[in-house]
């Protein structure tokens, strides 16, 4: 047996609280990173970048963000689409107003602006709970999208009402605009995804994560043991919105290049991200990636099978996709409310006991 969990002892609390406590897991993780950074950029094609890898990385960031809010802090949000729009439009305004500053900085700043908007719409969470709150976040979704459609300042009075990303480069590489190469798109998104996943992990394994989970599991008890619900919920909304804002900014600047609020950031985006979190696993970093991968790959897969191989019309495939996604959501909630991440843990546990499960 090459992979084993036993015998990997820790002698300090520092070692015990690291992200991958097992040496072999750690090695696997570094190997995956090495492949992602050193191999994939050289072999990536436009098709793989545009239909699989880049959307996967961007949605993984968004799913991480929503998972922090919903999975860790227990506040259900249906406003992710609206917050992604804030990120996209903020990045657009910043990039067109300050062209001399790197667009990568703008993406981060867009995240910061989204965080502020997120806190504003998160304030009601102090009074409203559960699905009342979920419905309340719809206000953010519809209001923000309406705002970006109706106020010409946000799209610089462009005739089409669309926003289009200007061409920008970083260290001589074009990273936005139509000329961007597949590997540049991929690498930009990969850097953000890895960095933000690391941040998410740091936050959730320590004090902040425990504060959020305490609020999620029993908010009244949390307050009585000394958690300030205001700061706990507002930091959750801020951090979550930051992630979602960055995802929205990347979606617009790096991936799509152009966007229109109600088309690109409609209510369906909110549900898509929510589904990724549910299918992947609430309260799991790995789950956010798994859920994003699953829901990015599923339509590609269905399209290849139904349209590509069987020759069905695309609209039929789209309807079937809706049904499958819907059924999967229900299925996961019934069979494994903790999603793919839990499925993975359970499998490991079973393998550990195999072949003598009792």
């Amino acid at each position, binding site marked *: 047996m090459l992979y084993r969990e036993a015998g990997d002892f820790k002698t300090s609390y520092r070692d015990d609280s690291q992200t991958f406590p097992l040496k072999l897991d750690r090695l696997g993780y570094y190997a995956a990173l090495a492949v992602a950074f050193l191999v994939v950029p050289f072999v990536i094609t436009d098709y793989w970048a545009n239909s699989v890898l880049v959307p996967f990385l961007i949605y993984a960031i968004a799913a991480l963000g929503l998972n922090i809010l919903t999975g860790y802090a227990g506040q259900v949000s249906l406003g992710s689409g609206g917050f992604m729009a804030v990120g996209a439009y903020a990045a657009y305004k910043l990039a067109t107003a300050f062209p001399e500053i790197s667009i990568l900085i703008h993406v981060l700043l867009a995240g910061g602006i989204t965080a502020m908007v997120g806190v504003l719409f998160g304030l009601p969470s102090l009074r409203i709970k559960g699905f009342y709150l979920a419905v309340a976040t719809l206000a953010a979704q519809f209001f923000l999208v309406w705002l970006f459609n109706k106020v010409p300042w946000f799209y610089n009075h462009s005739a089409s009402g669309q926003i289009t990303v200007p061409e920008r480069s970083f260290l001589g590489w074009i990273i936005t605009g139509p000329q961007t190469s597949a590997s540049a798109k991929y690498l930009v998104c990969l850097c953000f995804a890895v960095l933000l996943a690391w*941040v998410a992990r740091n936050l959730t394994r320590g004090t902040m994560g425990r504060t959020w989970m305490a609020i999620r*599991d*029993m908010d*009244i*008890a949390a*307050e009585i*043991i*000394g*958690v*300030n619900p205001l700061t706990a919920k507002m930091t959750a909304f801020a951090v979550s919105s930051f992630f979602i804002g960055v995802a929205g900014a990347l979606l617009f600047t790096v991936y799509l290049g152009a966007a229109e609020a109600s088309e690109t950031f409609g209510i369906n985006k909110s549900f898509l991200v929510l589904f990724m979190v549910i299918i992947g696993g609430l309260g799991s970093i790995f789950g956010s990636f798994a859920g994003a991968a699953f829901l990015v790959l599923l339509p590609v897969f269905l399209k290849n099978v139904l349209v590509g191989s069987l020759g069905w019309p695309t609209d039929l495939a789209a309807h079937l996709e809706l049904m499958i996604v819907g059924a999967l959501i229900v299925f996961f909630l019934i069979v494994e409310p903790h999603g793919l991440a839990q499925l993975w843990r359970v499998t490991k546990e079973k393998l550990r006991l195999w072949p003598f499960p009792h």
Partner: protein
Amino acid sequence: MMPQTQQAATGAEPYITPDGRKIGGVLMDLRNITLRFGGVTAIKDISFDIREGEIRAIIGPNGAGKSSMMNVMSGFYVPQEGEVWFRGERRPQMRPYKVARLGLARTFQNIALFDGMSVLDNIMTGRLTMVKSSLLEQALWWGRAEAEENRHREQVEKIIDFLEIQNIRKTPVGRLPYGLKKRVELARALAAEPKLLMLDEPMAGMNVEEKEDMSRFILDVNDEFGTTIALIEHDMGVVMDLSDRVVVMDYGRKIGDGTPDEVRNNQEVIDAYLGVAHD
């Protein structure tokens, strides 16, 4: 009907108990507390104090208002009348999380643990009020964040040793049996290093062995850390053995207050427990 023993609110002299523990001045003083829910009066003009280092019990039949009293003490309910004094100062009306930061920790009658987290994480939440590192430091796991995490972990591990729950450290709380959950809840409250520890029916629903364990822990906590403890309990035997002084409540009023022996011989208390026709 006047309460039988009216404690002096302040100025009680420190003394040493027969078993050698030091009882100090007044830590918490509740003065003329009245609490109403709509038309129902849950607590009616109750006063008593809790002195440093003692184990103070609140007893009474079901619905006497004991848990409501504890909720007033922990700031979760705001009484309509009366004052709560803590460490010589009048405590203004404040949110429960601020009360916790003054040095109060408690356990709950219906266990209020965070079911989605491990035992270790649950106990670590007891130390949340002491964390100083900023969000940015935590996000980058840099600066104070890591050192602080390890320092708190060390303290928590001491409590884990003390309560003999090392082997379930990483188990999700939801999977634990009832008795152990109660113990984890005690650990979480202890982790906060409280000045006053409040236990709401720490032994409810336990079998004899579990009760004995829990009693031992309560005595040890009081003895070794010198923590002041206020507890609500149904089991009269346990209460009489553990506590230094007892408050007896019935129908929201205080009907007795004193040492276990005094209370045991109080006619009104006997009536309340054995039942006497009210006229």
